[in-house]
């Protein structure tokens, strides 16, 4: 297993990557469709699928050319089997599995969230399990205990909206563009602390689950009660970001205390939020734990993490059969751990 191709098409990024266990990540390329979905204020699944089928072959060729390898040199393929949008997943599934079949090499359908969990392993000084992972993106918000490769326990997750979704919806309420994360963060920088008050959902309850739909409603009310001017919109953005970050920090701290872990890794698109990073870094220094972030381009959806996870799974003996059916609602808890 010297050269693994990774394929990712679960949502609105088309991505390909090549991973080599000896030399690490050789190349990775992402085509983001954000601009195409922006006019609709969110991901249009059919548009996403149509883009994947146009972009995948050029991206695969690009990573091969950048790495100076031919596809005939491949030893395996990892492709995202789920969770994600069914039609979008299907493009990468048909492509990835059929490519491996055509080349006569093994492949493995990868769990997208496991790939996010393992993304920090691509960094020069990777954190060793056990650790707690905060996965926070437009599609997911969860805390996962990682005991070892393939051994995961979901400690808590969102019961409704994902944190990234709350950013998108808040952006819309504030008249900002999609995607909402960067737009809200920029406006928040101009807002005054505590000029308005929003709730920190579910932080007073003992569990590790999240809920962000009530926060979105509170933002709606705050917008309706405000004068609608730029100053008050900035104040609301500021307080919204603080509310989300507070919630994520409180629950992460609680997850570390509960598991006894001293390492936290943060992944997913919202993991790129500067305020979240700042607060978690402060918290880590205060409470004596370490916090690890994959580089920004590996926080958002990418195929580098899929190639790496594919490599780990193939090396542990996992193999696809010829059925490349996708699993749009695949739970992390359903993932088979490697047999030791």
């Amino acid at each position, binding site marked *: 297993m010297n050269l693994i191709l990774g394929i990712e098409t679960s949502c609105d990024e088309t991505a390909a990557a090549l991973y080599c266990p000896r030399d690490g990540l050789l190349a990775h390329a992402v085509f983001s469709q954000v601009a195409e979905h922006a006019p*609709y204020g969110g991901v*249009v699944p*059919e*548009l996403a*699928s*149509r883009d*994947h*089928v*146009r972009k*995948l*072959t*050029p991206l*695969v*060729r690009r990573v091969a050319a950048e790495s100076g390898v031919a*596809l005939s040199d491949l030893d395996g393929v990892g492709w995202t089997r789920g969770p994600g949008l*069914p*039609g979008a997943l*299907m*493009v*990468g*599934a*048909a*492509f*990835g*599995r*059929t*490519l491996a*079949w*055509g*080349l*006569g090499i093994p492949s493995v359908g990868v769990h997208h969230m496991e790939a996010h969990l393992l993304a920090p392993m691509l960094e020069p000084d990777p954190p060793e399990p056990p650790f707690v992972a905060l996965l926070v993106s437009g599609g997911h918000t969860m805390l996962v205990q990682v005991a070892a490769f393939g051994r995961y326990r979901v400690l808590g997750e969102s019961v409704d909206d994902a944190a990234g979704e709350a950013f998108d919806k808040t952006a819309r309420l504030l008249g900002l563009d999609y995607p909402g994360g960067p737009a809200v963060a920029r406006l928040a920088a101009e807002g005054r602390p505590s000029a308005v008050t929003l709730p920190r959902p579910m932080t007073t309850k003992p569990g590790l689950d999240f809920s962000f739909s009530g926060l979105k409603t509170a933002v709606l009310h705050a917008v309706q009660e405000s004068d609608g001017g730029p100053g008050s919109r900035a104040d609301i953005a500021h307080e919204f970001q603080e509310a989300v970050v507070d919630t994520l920090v409180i629950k992460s701290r609680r997850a570390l205390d509960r598991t006894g872990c001293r390492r936290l890794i943060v992944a997913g698109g919202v993991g790129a939020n500067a305020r979240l990073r700042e607060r978690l870094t402060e918290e880590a220094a205060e409470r004596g734990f370490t916090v690890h972030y994959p580089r920004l381009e590996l926080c958002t959806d990418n195929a580098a993490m899929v190639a790496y996870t594919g490599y780990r799974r193939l090396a542990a003996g996992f193999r696809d059969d*010829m*059925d*490349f*059916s*996708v699993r749009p609602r695949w739970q992390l808890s359903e993932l088979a751990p490697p047999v030791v």
Partner: protein
Amino acid sequence: MSDHKKPPVLIALETATEGCSVAVAAAGTVVERADETPRGHTARLLPMLTEAMAEAGVTPGDVDAVVFGRGPGAFTGVRLAASAAQALCLAWSVPAVGVSTLAALAYGAHRRTGADRIIAVLDARMDEAYWGRYRSAPNGAGLTLMEEERVGTPEEVPRGGGDWFGAGRGFAAFPERLPPAALGCDPDALPLARDLIPPGAVALQAGEGVDAAAALPLYLRSAVHY
């Protein structure tokens, strides 16, 4: 193509409808596998291809081109054939040939009944149909598409121009609303990969094989118009 005297070795994939089929054409014969498996295409495609290639005695190195049903049809289905065709073309360094799924329906009706004027119609959902009208080319070399293939209400399918044979499940979905099929009708017909082979071979011969990256679906319907 290594040898211009021999007919090319072709692989064909058709997954645009509830049918899933593959065909392997080599040495003047066609080996096919076909199933009606709504939602089962992803499980059946590669086992069918493995069996058909084995029965035809064809290995990857023998293949000259991959022919795929490019649609119209179910969006996810047409992407499946296109994505798999791209992958095979990359793996085997061969060109792709996209053929209309409606042409497969028309060629199938022509093969089975000899009819030489065929309206191929698929149910496009949302009270619409995909259609194409085909007739025998004057020189007997296959079928010719008369007007561009289209999506629209069944009432928009052109009337006139003589008598027609009706092929495809559009005729089952809209029995009263399509033009009369005076030459007969097969409202249960599914497009088959084996019927992509004749038009695919003609297109390949005419230099219409394309690079893997250009093996793309033809949807007819836009992604977000509804």
